[in-house]
């Protein structure tokens, strides 16, 4: 069935509430995003989400919308904390997949002659690729501490500094985590993968600040033009997948007893206040904490590599975390509904929190300017730093986009790359690349993704976040 959309303004489109939809859908997009015929399926998913009980205001989609399991990627939906549902399909398999950006005190020229040595050392030191295991071996007891404490565990074991915690969403720890809710399988999968990057679209990138759009905010974030940066994109590894799979199975079995019809089995869900709903919320928090600990460890490993290869003191490197954002998560947050603050369960799946200046959840350093938002692009073009806005609080439950989104299937990308050296093409553009998986480079080539600049232009134009800086890659390690 073709989904009808109505234009609201330049960057917003409405899917009117028809049939079983309880609220309308609202999609942030420009003409180029919605004109593609393959967008009908994700729009149908926006409509499906709008039919779930307890949904508030609208089923939202960001301009990097594309087809996902149950919820579309780029989907945002908030549910009433008492009457609403929670759905693993609204979070995604890779729970708390996210991005962190760190800056250094160095300029491009400071590292130019050692860039190759740097990327080689990062590739050798940071475990990456399918099923990769790290150097941290946890026993069951220690693993549960990771799951309860997230980044705090990592810092307490010497992987980083207290200052890193303040610059992480939620301080790198969701307090409601309860490891006893995880299956033996999920726990088993978490034992060996802490401190690993993973595969697919996960990466680490040494880059540089190319353009600054908002000098005052950039200053508050510690950014300057020509500065050397580090981006990490990783998640909760096999443990997060297992938590999602376990609860999808459990909620699917229970879905026959739900008082409404599920439009898609992948939308299996439970009332937030039911035993299963609460169990998922608290198990998901464990996986989220695992992901934060993972990125904290990865960041620490990278920081050590920078110091070693550049033969520089921590003080001269001056590497500090700008921020760590989650883009696959469900959270209890307070938002204004019908003029009154209310606790809601916000699902962000392929979407990033975008909190404005003055928000009480923000750390001291960013309270006056707003939350840093990191939007990675493909490995050949650009990434962006944005800042959260009040408009996002009013319109999107404090949310914005998360990245570029694929435009070519993996097979199509492989076909398109035949006879070409993607490595050489990137090197010609001044970007060094190292990778593990056999097909990774071709599958992840720049043309396989949408141009992130177009996605960012929409959220900037719509005012749900504002451009602060554009970064460009210098060296990339892919799993």
């Amino acid at each position, binding site marked *: 069935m073709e989904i009808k959309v109505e234009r609201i303004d330049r960057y917003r489109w409405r899917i009117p509430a028809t049939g079983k939809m309880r609220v309308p859908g609202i999609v942030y997009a420009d003409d180029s995003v919605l004109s593609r015929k393959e967008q009908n399926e994700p729009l149908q998913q926006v409509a499906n989400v709008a039919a779930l009980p307890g949904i508030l205001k609208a089923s939202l989609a960001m301009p990097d919308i594309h087809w996902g*399991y149950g919820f579309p990627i780029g989907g945002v939906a908030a549910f009433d904390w008492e009457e609403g549902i929670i759905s693993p399909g609204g979070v995604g398999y890779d729970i708390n997949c996210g991005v962190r950006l760190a800056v250094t005190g160095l300029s491009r020229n400071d590292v130019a002659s050692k860039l190759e040595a740097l990327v080689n050392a990062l590739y050798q030191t940071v475990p990456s690729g399918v099923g990769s295991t790290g150097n941290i071996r946890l026993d069951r007891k220690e693993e549960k501490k990771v799951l309860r404490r997230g980044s705090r565990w990592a810092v307490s074991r010497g992987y980083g500094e207290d200052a890193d915690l303040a610059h992480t969403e939620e301080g790198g720890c969701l307090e409601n985590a309860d490891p006893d809710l995880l299956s033996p399988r999920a726990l088993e999968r978490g034992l060996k993968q802490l401190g690993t990057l993973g595969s697919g679209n996960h990466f680490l990138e040494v880059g540089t600040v190319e353009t600054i759009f908002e000098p005052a905010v950039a200053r508050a974030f510690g950014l300057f033009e020509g500065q050397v940066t580090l981006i990490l994109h990783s998640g909760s590894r096999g443990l997060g997948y297992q938590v999602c799979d376990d609860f999808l199975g459990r909620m699917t079995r229970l879905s026959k007893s739900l008082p409404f019809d599920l439009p898609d089995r992948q939308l299996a869900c439970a009332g937030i206040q039911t035993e299963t709903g609460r169990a998922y919320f608290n198990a998901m928090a464990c996986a989220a904490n695992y992901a934060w600990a993972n990125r904290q460890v990865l960041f620490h490993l990278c920081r050590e590599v920078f110091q070693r290869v550049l033969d520089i003191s921590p003080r001269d490197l001056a590497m500090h975390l700008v921020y760590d954002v989650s883009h696959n998560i469900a959270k209890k947050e307070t938002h204004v509904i019908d003029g009154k603050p209310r606790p809601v369960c916000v699902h962000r799946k392929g979407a990033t929190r975008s909190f404005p200046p003055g928000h009480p959840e923000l750390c001291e350093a960013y309270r006056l300017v707003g939350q840093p938002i990191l939007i990675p692009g493909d490995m050949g073009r650009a990434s962006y730093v944005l800042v959260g806005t009040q408009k996002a609080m009013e319109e999107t439950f404090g949310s914005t986009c998360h990245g570029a989104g694929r435009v070519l299937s993996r097979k199509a990308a492989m076909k398109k790359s035949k006879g070409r050296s993607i490595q050489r093409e990137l090197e010609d553009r001044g970007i060094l690349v190292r990778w593990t998986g056999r097909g990774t480079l071709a599958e992840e080539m720049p043309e396989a993704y949408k141009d992130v600049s177009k996605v960012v232009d929409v959220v900037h134009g719509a005012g749900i976040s504002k451009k602060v800086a554009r970064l460009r890659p210098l060296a990339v390690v892919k799993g």
Partner: protein
Amino acid sequence: MKAPAARKAGYRLIDHTADLGMVVFAPTEKALYETAGAALFDILAEGIPPGPGPAETLHIRGEDPAERMVNWLRELLYLWAGKGLLVRDIRVTRITEDRLSAAVRVHPYDPKRHGIKTEIKAVTYHRLRVGPTSKGWEAFIIFDV
């Protein structure tokens, strides 16, 4: 899409923007699960050695063919992703209203002898279709990769 002839068991891959799908066809429901399981490992890895590995018996819950298929493939994927085992010689021994039982052989993954072809991260319900056709049984499954 024209349904493939299902007199013989087999599978083919379907391209999907972010992920990977497969159509599996077989003469019987039992053969459908066996073929889907073999296809999963065919997609995942190469270089599985001949000869018997240790035997395992698997019991899968599922109240309809679709649920059985997803839970079956999830179980096999767990043996790979969680335990590092490659599975072959799959024989479905019994299907009841809510259960599937199978005997398989497992081989520990050895990076010196085996190669990873594609990473599959999850088996999904998205557009899942499992059921009888005029020629036998057929399933459509999408994997998260």
